[in-house]
C-alpha cells in the first residue's frame, strides 16, 4: 500500500473514531423523538435529561428543554434551562477560540457539520431572552423580566453587525481551502440554487434579522410595567416595520396617550397567540456537477438542509367579534436567516463532497476493497445538518379587548370555545396562548402583582 493511501485510511479511521456516530446517523431521530415528547404533554423530562447527560448539542437541548418546561408551566425550570443555553452561547459560541473554530471547520469538511456542537441561530438567541422575559412575568418578577426584554432588544441591535463578522470569519477560512474555486464553480452553484428557488423567493423578508415579535412583545411588557415612554418607543418601532397593522397601531396609540397626559381609565386583556409549529429542516439530496477532474464532469449527490413548512393550528383566535392579528411570521424570520447562512452551508458541503470524491477516487484506484470502503464512507457521511430549535411557533398574533367582561371567552377560528378565563376587571392581564396543533392548547395568565 502506498503512503498516500495509508494516509487516507488512517484519516478515515481517525475521523470515524473521534466523531462517534452522529456524522453518520445525523440528528433526525433525536429531533423526531423530542417532537413526540412535546406533543404528548406528560411533562416527563427523561429524554431531555438524557440528552443533557450526553453533553452533546447542549445549546439545542437546553433550549428545547426550556420550551418543554414552559409548556408544562414550570417557569423556574424553564428559565434555569434557558439560562444554561444562554451561558453556553457566550462561552462556547461567541468566545470560541480560533483553534476550536478551525477544528469545527475541519470536521465539517472531512465528515459533516453534524459532528460539531450545535451553535444555534441569531433568532433563537432573541427568542431565548423573550421567553425568559415571559417566564419572569409569570413568576411576577417584572424586574428580571425587564432585564430579559432589554437583552432580547440588544441582541437584535447586535444581530446585523455580529452576523456579518461571523460570516466573514468563516468565509476567510473557506477561501484558504485549496478546493474553494472548484466549489464555487458557477455551474455547481447554479445546480444547488435551482433547488432552493421555491424557498428563497416570494416571501416578506424582515430587515437585518429583526424579529418583529420581540420588539412588539417588549413594548407590551413595558406597557404592563407602567413604563409608557419606553413602550411607546418600541411600539413605534414595531409600527414602522408594519405600518398597516391595526393591532400594533392601536397599541401604539394607547402607549402614546399614556406616555403623555392621558390617564389610564380602562383596563385591558392582551391575548398573545402562538400559532402552530415553525419551519424545520430536512435533508435534501441535490445532484451537482463537480469540475474536479480535468478531463470530465463528475456528478455527485450533495446532502443539504432545506427548510420545510410544518402544521398551522387555528388560523386565528377570537373574542366576541374581534379576531387576532398577526404580529410576526416566525417562518419568515427563520427563512431570512437561513437564506443569509445558506451560501456558507452550501460551500462547506461542496468542499466536503470534493474531498470525499477525491478520496473515493484514490481508493478506487487502489483496488476493489478500497473502492468499497470509499463508497461506504461517502455514502454514510453524506448527511446534512438539520438541527434547529423546533419548539418555536409558526407565527405570533395579538388581540386586545377592553376588560368589561368576566370571564373572557376565547374562541377558535370556527367559533368553538377554546378557553374561558376568569379575570379581575380592575387590572390589566396578559393571556398567552400556545397551540402547536389543533386541540393542543396551553394558556398562561399574567397579571402584575399576582403569581
Amino acid at each position: 500500500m502506498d503512503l498516500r493511501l495509508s494516509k487516507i485510511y488512517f484519516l478515515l479511521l481517525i475521523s470515524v473514531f473521534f466523531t462517534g456516530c452522529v456524522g453518520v446517523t445525523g440528528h433526525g431521530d433525536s429531533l423526531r423523538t423530542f417532537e413526540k415528547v412535546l406533543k404528548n404533554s406528560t411533562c416527563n423530562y427523561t429524554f431531555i435529561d438524557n440528552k443533557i447527560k450526553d453533553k452533546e448539542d447542549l445549546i439545542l437541548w437546553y433550549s428545547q428543554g426550556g420550551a418543554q418546561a414552559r409548556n408544562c408551566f414550570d417557569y423556574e425550570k424553564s428559565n434555569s434551562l434557558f439560562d444554561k443555553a444562554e451561558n453556553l452561547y457566550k462561552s462556547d459560541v461567541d468566545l470560541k477560540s480560533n483553534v476550536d473554530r478551525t477544528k469545527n471547520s475541519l470536521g465539517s469538511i472531512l465528515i459533516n457539520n453534524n459532528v460539531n456542537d450545535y451553535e444555534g441561530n441569531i433568532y433563537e438567541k432573541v427568542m431565548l431572552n423573550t421567553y425568559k422575559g415571559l417566564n419572569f412575568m409569570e413568576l411576577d418578577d417584572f424586574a428580571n423580566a425587564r432585564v430579559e426584554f432589554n437583552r432580547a432588544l440588544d441582541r437584535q441591535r447586535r444581530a446585523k453587525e455580529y452576523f456579518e463578522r461571523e460570516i466573514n470569519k468563516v468565509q476567510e477560512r473557506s477561501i484558504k481551502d485549496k478546493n474553494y474555486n472548484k466549489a464555487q464553480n458557477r455551474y455547481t452553484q447554479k445546480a444547488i440554487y435551482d433547488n432552493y428557488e421555491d424557498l428563497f423567493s416570494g416571501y416578506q423578508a424582515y430587515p437585518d434579522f429583526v424579529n418583529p415579535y420581540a420588539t412588539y412583545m417588549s413594548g407590551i411588557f413595558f406597557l404592563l410595567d407602567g413604563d409608557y415612554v419606553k413602550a411607546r418607543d418600541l411600539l413605534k418601532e414595531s409600527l414602522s416595520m408594519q405600518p398597516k397593522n391595526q393591532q400594533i397601531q392601536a397599541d401604539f396609540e394607547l402607549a402614546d396617550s399614556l406616555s403623555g397626559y392621558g390617564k389610564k381609565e380602562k383596563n385591558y386583556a392582551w391575548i398573545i397567540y402562538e400559532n402552530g409549529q415553525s419551519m424545520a429542516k430536512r435533508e435534501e439530496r441535490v445532484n451537482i456537477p463537480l469540475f474536479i477532474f480535468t478531463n470530465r464532469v463528475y456528478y455527485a449527490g450533495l446532502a443539504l438542509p432545506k427548510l420545510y413548512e410544518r402544521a398551522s393550528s387555528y388560523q386565528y383566535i377570537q373574542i366576541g367579534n374581534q379576531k387576532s392579528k398577526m404580529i410576526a411570521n416566525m417562518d419568515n424570520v427563520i427563512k431570512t436567516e437561513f437564506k443569509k447562512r445558506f451560501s456558507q452551508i452550501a460551500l462547506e458541503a461542496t468542499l466536503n463532497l470534493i474531498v470525499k470524491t477525491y478520496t473515493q477516487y484514490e481508493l478506487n484506484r487502489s483496488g476493489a476493497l478500497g473502492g468499497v470502503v470509499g463508497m461506504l464512507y461517502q455514502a454514510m457521511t453524506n448527511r446534512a445538518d438539520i438541527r434547529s430549535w423546533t419548539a418555536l411557533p409558526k407565527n405570533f398574533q395579538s388581540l386586545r379587548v377592553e376588560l368589561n367582561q368576566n370571564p373572557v371567552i376565547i374562541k377558535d377560528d370556527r367559533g368553538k370555545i377554546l378557553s374561558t378565563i376568569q379575570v379581575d376587571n380592575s387590572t390589566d392581564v396578559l393571556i398567552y396562548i400556545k397551540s402547536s396543533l389543533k386541540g393542543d392548547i396551553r394558556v398562561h395568565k399574567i397579571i402584575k402583582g399576582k403569581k
Partner: protein
Amino acid sequence: MKTVLASLLIVSTLIFTGCATKPQYVQSADKPITMGLDRRDFEKAAKAAIKDLLESGVMNKNGGGRYVVAMGRVVNDTTQRIDTAMLTKKIRIALLKSGKAIMTTAVAAGGPEDEMTKEVRRLRADDEFKQSTIAKKGTIYAPDMSLSGKIIQRTQKANSKNQLVEYYIQLTMTQLETGLAIWEGETTIGKVGSNDSVTW
C-alpha cells in the same frame, strides 16, 4: 525502586496540584473587570451620590433633627441581572451615618422592607402577649422623603473590534409633602471592551 516511586509521587503531585487557581482577593485596579456593573462601579456611584446629596444642603432639617426617608423604586433598566440594593444600601448607610436622615423600613415601593412593624401590631388581640409591650397606635413615623432612581444602559459599537457600554445611574430625592424632587444626581460609568459577545 524507591527513587522511581519518589519521582513518580513528585510528578503526580505536580500534575494534580500545580495549576489549580487559588482564590484571592480582588485587588483594586484601574482597569474594569467586566463589561457589566461590578462592586467598584456601585461604590463609585454611591460615593459620588452621597457627597453631592449631603453637600447640596437639602438634607439639613430646619431646627435640627433628622428626615425620615423611604425607599422608592430603583429601576434596573439594563441587561445585567443586578440587585439595586447593592447601590442603595451604600447610600442608606452613609445617610444614616451622616446623622441627617433615617430610613424607614415600614413603608417602601412594592411593600414594606420589614413586615414586622405591621406584624407586631397584629398581636394586639392576642392575650398571650403582654399588651403593654406591644407598639402603641400612632407611633409609626411616616416618611418625609423618598429615594428613587433608575439605572440605564446604552451599548454601541466603538470600532470594528470593540463596543462601548455606558451606564447612567440616576437618583432622585422627592419631598413627599410637595411631590417635588429636591435633589437629583447622576453618575455615568463608561467601559470599552471586546465586541465578541454581549455585555452580560
